[in-house]
């Protein structure tokens, strides 16, 4: 036993080691990414670990490992489960022999996500258990035990932490790293693994028969627990349980739901003992709906009564206010001070020297009247440069672009997509666009890494998750084999050539691909690439502000004149942009 100060994701990763994990795969997505990032560099236990090209790929790899009797983990964020939803639904039918845990991190308030969907809905939909930790310690303990639960019922288990678990830290009590290693053996059993209709009908019945014993077991395991203390109760789940406990008076009963499906008998016996029950949970009213199904005379307050907010994340102050609204006097009330108005915003921004900035700049300069669908990654921040018109989900820039182009819209369509995202789900869209004759330009922003989530390697990086060298794929060859005849690879720091390439693309027809290739400025710095910084010749600077619109964080203004700060990474693009030739490499004026 050791107590350490760990991030939720670190505690979760360590729990995998304690549980004798044999196989891990995933696709990076905040707030889930650190789990594989830690597993791939740890040295305490050897096992197979990979970053997969997308969540469906990761899911199916790990599922197969579990079919071979191994303990397998697959990680993603909530929206990633949409990509893996197809195998998820059927994996509940086939079941598993080894332990299979699907870590799917939810993001209330959409801190770094495109929506606030609730993974508990998927667990319900697929009829598989979902574990929902309320603290970092519980996340550790639950994950460690979830492999055994998966093996006991022969079902995949969804483990669903939220942002405030993944990215919270606390003192965590850890166990010893497991030393048991299993050997993968695939037992042929077509009746279980081949889901032709005749087999599926049997498997569905078996899946349904597992539900009631599963519900009872989750109560036995202590994941769903309650204390009766009065005639009023609060039922809560996930991290909201921590906020509730911080402000709950002693004479109010408390139930914490840490696992789904919820045993109806257990829930009903608790609810029936109270005159009023308040349900406090983030995202969807999953617990609330379960309670409404079992409650007969008890008054139920929650989202549907307007007592608890439907959107965003909860915190101690909102929970205290919710209790107050429900007629339960909280032990702590919080002031509601207003933030100071008029403080200029400081949103995240593309780094100084980021290769995406000149690409966006050139794209807009050449295609002034263009429509710019984009995708998920750092480059979504190109929104601030007026270079992002649409974003839905991974891989959708090319498909949205071709849809706009083929619908008859006459403005030119130029879409942007990162290398990792292109390999994730961009490729089928490109193939489709070419095959169906779309008129569009596809710009692949190739920075050789998955930068936004913390620089995880992808098949374009030339290195695997564990640091083993691997042959980097050729984006050019992939595009050509999808049927694109005009593919140009350019260095985005070379602005004249970049502009020229966009102009050439404009003159052509069909699907044209520009690969703007330059390493991410952060990985470049870490690998020791040093470029000379740039400076402004104040006598030449006219204060015209052209560099201002370029939006580089290394360019500041002191009065009328521009200055270049210590953030400069030396990309040199601003020197090409300045109409008065006032920007040059320092010491070389």
């Amino acid at each position, binding site marked *: 036993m050791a*107590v*350490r*100060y760990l*991030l939720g994701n670190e505690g979760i990763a360590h729990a995998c080691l304690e549980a004798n994990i044999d196989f891990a795969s995933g696709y990076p997505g*905040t*707030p889930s990414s650190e789990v594989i990032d830690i597993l791939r560099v740890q040295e305490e236990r050897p096992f197979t670990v990979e970053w997969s090209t997308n969540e469906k790929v990761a899911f199916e790899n790990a599922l197969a490992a579990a079919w071979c009797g191994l303990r397998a983990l697959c990680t993603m964020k909530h929206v990633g489960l949409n990509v893996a939803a197809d195998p998820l639904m059927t994996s509940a039918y086939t079941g598993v022999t080894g332990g299979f845990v699907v870590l799917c991190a939810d993001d209330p308030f959409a*801190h*770094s996500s495109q929506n606030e969907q609730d993974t508990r809905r998927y667990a319900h939909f697929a009829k598989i258990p979902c574990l929902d930790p309320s603290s*970092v310690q519980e996340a550790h303990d639950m994950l460690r035990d979830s492999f055994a639960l998966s093996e006991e019922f022969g079902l995949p288990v969804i483990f669903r932490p939220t942002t*405030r678990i993944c*990215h*919270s*830290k*606390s*003192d965590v009590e850890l166990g010893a790293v497991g030393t048991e290693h299993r050997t993968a053996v695939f037992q042929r059993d077509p009746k279980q693994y081949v889901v032709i209709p005749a087999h599926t009908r049997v498997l569905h019945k078996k899946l349904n028969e597992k539900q009631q014993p599963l519900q009872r077991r989750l109560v036995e395991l202590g994941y769903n627990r309650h204390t009766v203390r009065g005639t009023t109760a609060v039922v809560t789940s996930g*991290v909201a349980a*921590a*906020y509730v*406990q*911080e402000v709950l008076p002693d004479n109010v009963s408390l139930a914490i739901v840490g696992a789904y499906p919820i045993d109806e008998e257990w829930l009903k016996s608790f609810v029936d003992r109270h005159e009023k029950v308040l349900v406090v949970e983030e995202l969807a009213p999953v617990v609330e709906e379960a309670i409404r199904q079992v409650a007969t005379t008890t008054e139920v307050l929650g989202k549907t009564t307007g007592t608890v907010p439907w959107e965003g994340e909860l*915190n*101690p*102050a909102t929970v*205290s206010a919710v209790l107050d609204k429900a007629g339960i006097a909280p032990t702590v009330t*919080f*002031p*509601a*001070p*207003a*933030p*100071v108005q*008029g*403080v*200029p*915003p*400081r*949103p*995240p*921004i*593309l*780094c100084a020297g980021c290769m995406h900035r000149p690409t966006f700049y050139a794209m807009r300069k050449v295609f002034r009247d263009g429509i710019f669908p984009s995708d998920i990654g*750092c480059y979504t*921040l190109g929104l*601030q440069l007026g270079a992002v018109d649409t974003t839905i989900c991974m891989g959708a820039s090319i498909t949205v672009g071709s849809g706009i182009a083929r619908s008859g819209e006459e403005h030119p369509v130029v879409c942007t997509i990162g290398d990792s995202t292109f390999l994730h789900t961009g490729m089928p869209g490109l193939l489709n666009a070419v095959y169906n004759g779309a008129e569009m330009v596809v710009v692949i922003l190739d920075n050789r890494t998955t930068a*936004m*989530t913390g620089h995880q390697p992808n098949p374009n990086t030339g290195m695997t998750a564990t640091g083993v060298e691997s042959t980097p794929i050729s984006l050019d060859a992939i595009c050509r084999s999808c049927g694109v005849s005009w593919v140009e690879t350019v260095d985005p720091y070379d602005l004249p050539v970049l502009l020229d390439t966009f102009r050439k693309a404009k003159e052509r027809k069909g699907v044209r691909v520009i690969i703007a290739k330059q390493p991410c400025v952060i990985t470049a710095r870490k690998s020791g690439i040093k470029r000379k910084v740039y400076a402004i010749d104040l006598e030449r600077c006219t204060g015209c502000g052209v560099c*201002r*619109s370029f*939006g*580089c*964080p290394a*360019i*500041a*203004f002191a009065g009328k004149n521009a200055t270049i700060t210590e953030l400069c990474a030396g990309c040199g693009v601003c020197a090409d942009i300045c109409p008065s030739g006032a920007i040059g490499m320092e010491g070389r004026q």
Partner: protein
Amino acid sequence: MKPSFDILIVGIGGQGTVLASNVLGEACIIENRTVRSAETHGMAQRGGSVESHIRIDGKFGSLIAPGTADLLIAFDLLEALRYRHYLPAGGRLIVNRNLVVPTSVYQQNLDVPDEESILSALADLDVACIDAAGLAEEAGSILSQNIVMLGAASGFIPLRPDTLEEAVRRCVPRKTVEVNAAAFRLGREAGARGAGTP
């Protein structure tokens, strides 16, 4: 009585707020105290405004409610202004005398308050303003400003100074241990002097 001592550290992505909160968490482990913290990850790190909540002796959630922080440590004057509502009236603020103008100001032609007007807007708080850059350079590296700030705040944190210094040694990269230990001590002296208090 308040069950935990709540500290909010705010700054700009890349300034080392997470490392500073790691030091506080590690110090809690050394002293066998419970601790909860929440930090900013992902998209917000690209030069954006970031915050780290630390609750020493915390047992519940990791979030500090606005108006209830015991201490605000700000690595930038503008960020101090942005998050000041986390402090109660008269609350304690340790702020770096440093102002990075957000790029949004130049792009959108926004007004940005200067140092003097920010300090006067913060004057109702108990403020210590620290020249962290100068002290960090004195310690041997401009990158140690976050540890200088932690040192400056250490006199107001319910953890022993030697514990905090030991936690600094455990948390920073091996090559930089001595520089950061020096940064911590210089910050601590400056904090004790109330250096630069407006």
